[in-house]
């Protein structure tokens, strides 16, 4: 929700970005 504390928003954003990077690097189309 919109009341999510800033520290958790930052953590969440970082987690989702890293997750996306891991998926891209694991993709067979990455290279």
């Amino acid at each position: 929700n919109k009341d999510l504390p800033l520290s958790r928003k930052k953590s969440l954003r970082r987690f989702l970005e890293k997750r996306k990077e891991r998926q891209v690097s694991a993709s067979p189309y990455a290279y």
Partner: protein
Amino acid sequence: GESQPFNQDSLQQRLQGLIDNARDSWTYGIFWQSSAVDYTSPSFLGWGDGYYKGEINKQKTTTSVSSLAEQEHRKKVLRELNSLISGTQMPENEAVDEEVTDTEWFFLISMTQSFVNGSGLPGQAMFSNQPVWIAGRERLLASQCERARQGEGFGLQTIVCIPSTNGVLELGSTELIFQSSDLMNEARVLFNFSY
């Protein structure tokens, strides 16, 4: 050494540094931050920051035991979380195609947790000012703490809680990792903040 000033960016750097440079394979690290102003006030431990590294040598077929319905639920939540923060960087309605692993899910739900008056693994570590190191699935399952049993259910084999001045560092791993005084000393120095 002297305490370093606290801010969330430096906290993230410390978590990453500790986990990425560790000899053992830690899956994640979380710093539970104490709300206490002084030693006499009641306190709780809440989310400070966390770093999810993931599992080394992850085998897709063996890391998750979740059902199809559970996977759909997790993906739906991740899509909603993506939307929640997309106002700044993430594209809207980004697809979540990849399986949300058990340890990813455990890390995410940890963001909603807090520990009051010495309760839970982090609370016990803070209250006793002693590290709690639980290695082995049987020991996690036998723990009085719900968080330890929950972690085991999501595939963890080791959970460690190390108290510091202003909170508790928790590390978790899908590997079996035995106690190391080097790690505890490093953690105590790295996470000894001043405000």
